[in-house]
């Protein structure tokens, strides 16, 4: 598939926002259980503003994917069957929950109401991860995507990104949280490494179910396309081929593995030891760049069976 940058930005930005919200709520939940001191109201209210900024930026990016953005409101219609429609509904509901949670923290401070609101927000954040992941995982013939690992990776990579941002945020706003936040971030990042590596290993061993034999229904071991029916390009030749070399794909793969996992983890350890918001923020930015590469690779790696019909121009 040809990776669409609108979708890459959408999924990485809202993933970071959802992860940050889960981290904010974990901070309140842990404090309410007495694990650490309750962070300031500002930690939550400004944190929620940051979450909203990430979600709005993601939503903004998603509009560039649409041919007819003015009709985007229609996309909430088919929630009974379409994961995309479900995502379109859950995202604004989650944004409303985040806004309410931040507002109550700002006006009244932490309490039972914020715990309840935040719990609902976390449930919505997790639901949104499931919707986003299932958009890809539900397509059976994109075999690289058709696995529960797709949903798990969206969840864990988004959480890793958001937790890392929350660690930088904690180092600036709630130093008492820093060690716990860094430990959680490390754990989530390592879990994401395990599941992403698992999906890479799985996809490396995939055998395509569709072949040129099933595509045209001729059972002969040697079939070669001689003409695709036109000399120029079309939607089918542009949107389903990434057009990059195998070497470039390998480079992106190892690049994102390096940028998403070991480098931010090293900066996370250094930033937590130095209690430096700048180092931790740099770790987040570095990992975000890596996540852009990860998402690019996720799309590029998927081989669409329609490509079997577009193997030779003439």
């Amino acid at each position, binding site marked *: 598939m040809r990776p669409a940058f609108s979708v890459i930005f959408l999924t990485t930005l809202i993933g970071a926002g959802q992860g940050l919200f889960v981290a904010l709520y974990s901070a309140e939940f842990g404090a309410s259980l007495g694990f650490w001191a309750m962070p300031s109201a500002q930690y939550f209210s400004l944190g929620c503003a940051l979450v909203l900024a990430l979600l709005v930026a993601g939503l903004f990016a998603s509009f560039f994917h649409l041919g007819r953005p003015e009709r985007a409101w229609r996309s909430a219609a088919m929630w009974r069957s*379409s994961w995309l429609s479900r995502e379109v509904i859950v995202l604004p509901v989650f944004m409303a929950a985040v806004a309410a949670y931040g507002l109550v923290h700002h006006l009244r401070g932490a309490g039972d109401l914020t715990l309840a609101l935040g719990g609902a927000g976390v449930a919505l954040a997790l639901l949104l991860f499931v919707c986003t992941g299932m958009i890809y995982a539900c397509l059976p013939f994109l075999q690289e995507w058709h696995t529960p690992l797709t949903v798990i990776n969206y969840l864990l990579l988004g959480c890793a990104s958001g937790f890392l941002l929350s660690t930088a945020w904690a180092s600036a706003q709630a130093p008492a949280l820093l060690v716990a936040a860094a430990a959680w971030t490390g754990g989530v990042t390592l879990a994401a490494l395990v599941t992403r590596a698992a999906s890479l290993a799985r996809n490396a061993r995939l055998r395509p179910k569709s072949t040129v034999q099933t595509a045209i229904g*001729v059972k002969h071991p040697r079939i070669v396309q001689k003409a695709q029916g036109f000399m*120029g390009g079309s939607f089918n030749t542009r949107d389903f081929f990434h057009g990059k070399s195998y070497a470039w794909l390998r480079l992106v793969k190892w690049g994102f593995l390096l940028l998403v996992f070991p480098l931010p983890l090293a900066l996370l350890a250094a930033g937590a030891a130095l209690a430096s918001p700048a180092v931790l923020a740099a770790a987040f930015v570095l990992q975000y760049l890596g996540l852009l590469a990860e998402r690019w690779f996720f799309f590029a790696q998927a081989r669409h069976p329609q490509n079997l019909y577009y193997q030779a121009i003439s």
Partner: protein
Amino acid sequence: MSKQLALVIDLNVCVGCHACVTSCKEWNTSGAAGFLSDDNPYGRDPTGTFFNRVQTFEVGEFPNTQTVHFPKSCLHCEDPPCVPVCPTGASYKRAEDGIVLVDYDKCIGCKYCSWACPYGAREVDEHQKVMKKCTLCVDRIYDETLPQAERKPACVMACPTSARLFGDVHDPESAVSQAIRDSGGYALMPEWGTHPANHYLPRRKTEITLHRDELERVDNPLKIDGKLPKPDPKTPSLDDSTSW
């Protein structure tokens, strides 16, 4: 059972002339739904939206090769994977005749349905910014101002070798159902469970088996072939007057 209109394409007859491609484009760029994109048709990098393509595949290894011309359009699946993924309901399958259509006034151009079609049957119109696909000429096949014989998709009307049949594949007595039944009609990529309504008829070798006695008559009653040795005159025969 409800109706399911479909095409049956005979690969044994298709000569790869692209008449179906051009007639499809002509009809569907002229209708009420607006034109089909066609940019730089004579330029360096032509591109456009087509509902139908004829592709060519070579089967086997020289000298034992066969050229298969393969017309490809939307297969109007009985279980279309492109329909449930559409977030707006612009993609739908008509209950009354099984045609899979896009409502161009509802489509937001998110392209998700094209990801969900394993056959690559859907193409974005780069000017109208909506997804388009074969309609089985729905604006033609029910047009009562046309003579009954012309209420067929444009591609079927254009095919000079009658490689394209059109009809209801749920009606066991229809010409398309009979063709599928009698000539081994098959569906594309059956592994995905989409149950395409369009079927393809395989290449067939037309052979006549002739036995020697069909070329040279064994009993040769009138001796006109002159190939058999004449029997001895004394040899008794069934018919004395005609031997010798």
